[in-house]
């Protein structure tokens, strides 16, 4: 009897979990795709990102114009634009950046209180520098607009500080950027990640390892290798085997150590 009850309990719990996880095709597909996205973006795998782009597009067949899907599609396009930038393919940088901006716009048109979309919009707008530096006034205006909106909606969103940090990190000091300024933003991001809880499983939940990894990066730039190591360990703690750490931070760390 006891055993039966236990089995039943397991079954019920299992069922509840399954019904939560697989409540509908949409959520099912979303969770699968988001998981794959984490892997693909970690490895900066362009082919995988392109495949994933298709996955998300197909999800749109299940829920037309779903704002959350547009957020992920936009994020993929943003990542594809970054990888195009590495390949110095300016046409693709433009293509994917414009697409990302329009997808984030679509997202916020439908859900105007979704801070994460504004965070990404700020990043994508900043990307335009690479192919239309002549429109800098417009870029600054739109990027600042997205930034202000994100902050107003969710001042404790850790990815707000992460993206702001990235943009500051890559901006020359004379233009209001710099490593030291960026570091405080990454540290703030790290702090907010401690208490951050996504509203549900489909909500974005990335960036924790990047925040710590970027603090480490700032220390590397300032030649404080011991502090850097400490933060690398912290990043690996929140996300063991983080490819961001392995593929991006560590090489810099090793190089500087010598």
């Amino acid at each position: 009897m006891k055993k039966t009850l236990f089995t039943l309990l397991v079954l019920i719990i299992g069922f509840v979990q399954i019904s939560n996880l697989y409540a509908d095709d949409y959520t099912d597909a979303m969770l699968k795709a988001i998981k794959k996205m984490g892997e693909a973006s970690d490895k900066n795998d362009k082919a995988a990102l392109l495949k994933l782009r298709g996955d998300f597009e197909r999800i749109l067949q299940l829920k037309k114009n779903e704002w959350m899907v547009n957020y992920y599609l936009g994020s993929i396009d943003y990542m594809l634009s970054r990888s195009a930038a590495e390949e110095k393919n300016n046409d693709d940088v433009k293509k994917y950046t414009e697409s990302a901006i329009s997808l984030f716009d679509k997202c916020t048109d439908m859900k105007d209180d979704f801070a994460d979309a504004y965070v990404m919009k700020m990043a994508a707008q900043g990307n335009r520098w690479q192919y239309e530096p002549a429109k800098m006034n417009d870029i600054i205006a739109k990027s600042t607009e997205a930034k202000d909106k994100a902050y107003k909606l969710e001042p404790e969103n850790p990815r707000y500080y992460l993206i702001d940090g990235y943009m500051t990190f890559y901006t020359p000091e004379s233009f209001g950027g710099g490593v030291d300024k960026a570091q405080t933003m990454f540290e703030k991001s790290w702090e907010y990640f401690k208490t951050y809880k996504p509203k549900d499983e489909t909500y974005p939940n990335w960036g924790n390892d990047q925040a710590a990894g970027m603090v480490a990066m700032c220390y590397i730039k300032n030649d404080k290798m011991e502090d850097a190591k400490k933060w690398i360990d912290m990043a690996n703690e929140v996300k063991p085997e983080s490819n961001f750490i392995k593929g991006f931070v560590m090489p810099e760390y090793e190089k500087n150590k010598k």
Partner: protein
Amino acid sequence: MKTLIVTIFLSFVTLTALGQDAKITGKITGEKNLPLNGANVVIEGTIDGATTDSTGYYEFETSKNGSQSLLFTDIDYNEKRQTVVIEAGKTIELNVQLKKGEVETEEIIVTASSFTSGQQSQVTITPLEIVRIPGSDGDLFRAITTFPGSNQVDEGSRITVRGGDANEVLTILDQASLYNPFIFDDDFNTSSYTTINPWGLRGINFSSGGFSAKFGNVLSAVLDLKSYEMPQGTGGFAWLGLANVGLSGVFLSNNKKFGATVDIGQTILEPYFKLNGYLTESYNPIPLARGIGGTLAYKPSTSSNIKFIFDYSDDKIGVRNTGPSFDGFFNSGSKTVFGNLKYSAGIGSSTYMSMGLSYSNHKDDVSYGVLNTVTYQLYSKYRLDFTHKLSGKVDINTGAEYEYNDDSFEGRVPQFSYNLRNDAPYFDINSRNHTGRVGVYAEAQIKLFKRFFLIPGVRTDYHTLSKKNVVDPRLSMGWKFAKNQIVRGAVGLYHQYPRLEYYAQTNNFELKPEQATHYILGYEYNLNEGLFLFRVEGYYKDYKNLVLRDQNNFLYNSTGKGFARGVDVFLKSSVTNKYSTWISYAYTDSKRMQYDAIKQSPANYDITHNLTFVASYNISDVITTGLTYRLSTGKPFTPITGGVFDSTYNVYEPMYADYNSGRFPTYHRMDVNFQYIFSLFGRFAIAVFQINNILGNKNLYDYTYSTDYKERKEIITTNKRQFYLGLGLQF
């Protein structure tokens, strides 16, 4: 028991796999049948589908069967739907080719002789490039004079095209005609500036010939400006310069339905004059211009927009002038008010309507010796335009306008133009005339083939004062005959009614509209959306019915004629994001019998050779430098050969050589500037340092003579070597 469950379970899985699923495979290709990587296919309404690999190949399985719609998409291409019948267990192979949109034909609908700026890809100049052009002083009109088609010899902002006067160029802002968008405007056009802020513009289209039937009552060229329907955000910009200060603000409500902008500016010239060595005693008063302008915009629905633009500016100036008969200050002042109320709305999905009601009032006073006049020019216009998409291949544009013009002129005018002394004899003139003009046009934009467009159009205008009616047929074409290569052409009839001041000096207002026939043919090579642009264009214009003074009764008639022919060459290249440059060259041969000419003579702006070189280099992400060099044939003028003493008034009367038979020396000037972008109080800031006419070339804009006309003195332009420093802060 356990075994049984497993077995049942397994067999169920197998059954599903073997019995139900169908497989769909194939290849997705794009232009030239090249495989598309990352294209997507999906059974509509399901999640079943796949993304192509780098060979364009896709493959997926589905449990759906029967008739299904497959949707193929790619970020660069138009989507495509195809219905298939899926049978369980079978494999379907389906290869599809996606097509790019109509965009390609849209791109070439840029008519001959035009230069555009805006959001579309066919951009020849951006607002930032405008403010960066050295020597243009951030002035839109001066920037446009670096393009071929427009002659740059006068140093002010008025644009002259292919030999004709500045009043043959019409400036349109959101359907309204702008007749006086200038401060410090004078006949010599040496120091005028436009009051139009390039940052508020969403589109700039400058056409030096062969333009659309939309534009009436203009002979030579059109500068068509479109402002943003809504401000682009909320913020402000402050400018502190050595010669001017300005403050502007933009506001956009949270729901993006309401927007407002305001611009205030004023010149402060004393420090600028001191630094550049101007003699301040040559000015009384020191030139002063002020302006305030703004817009209010409201969006009642997603497809409609109401916008009001308002602008006020005034200026005054007194400059010492030593003429043959009078030595004193030439004083002038002006006040200009402009307003435009515009409503635009989509009607259904394929028709767009916009209408505008504009008003402008310009007052101009001048005094020098006995000369003392006040001129008022009032224009008011109502305009209605429709654009209707008849099909994917045909757009129809049609519209109508009514324009009212009332000019008055009063004051003292010397009886003899060569005697300006305070006690000289004068006419007391008080003249006022008004007219109306009704215009109607229709044109079709036809994409005859994928890479070929044709725009036939016609307009008709009626002038109420002269009771003269004209009909102007026009035709424009473009053919993208090879990748990156376009041929454009235009032919058409153009008319412009003379200004009221000419009608005032006729019998019974018997002046015909001046007429020009344009013939234009051009070739363009355009690589990567303007990254490398080469254009060459030839034109011929035939003029009839030009205003000419009858040498017997000194009244005007319409017997003038003339022609203009020439070649424009334009080369622009943005070699990298760091370096961009353009060179424009224009050859012009323009002869007219017009105004005071007694035979065919060089037109007022017959500049044989006109060369402009502009380069800009980004030294770093935050520092940009630029250089402009201009070289051109001197402008024609009518020389004075000597003087005859008139004992009645104790003054010399000048003897003129043939009309426009002299030429000023070759004009040349080099300008450089530096721009530094930095952060100030955590805000975006820009500093500009520029040196105009760095080589200190002495360019003439006129000659003056001694009292007896025996001695000729050069009047050098005020644009000597000049330093300017400005600081802008965005907040």
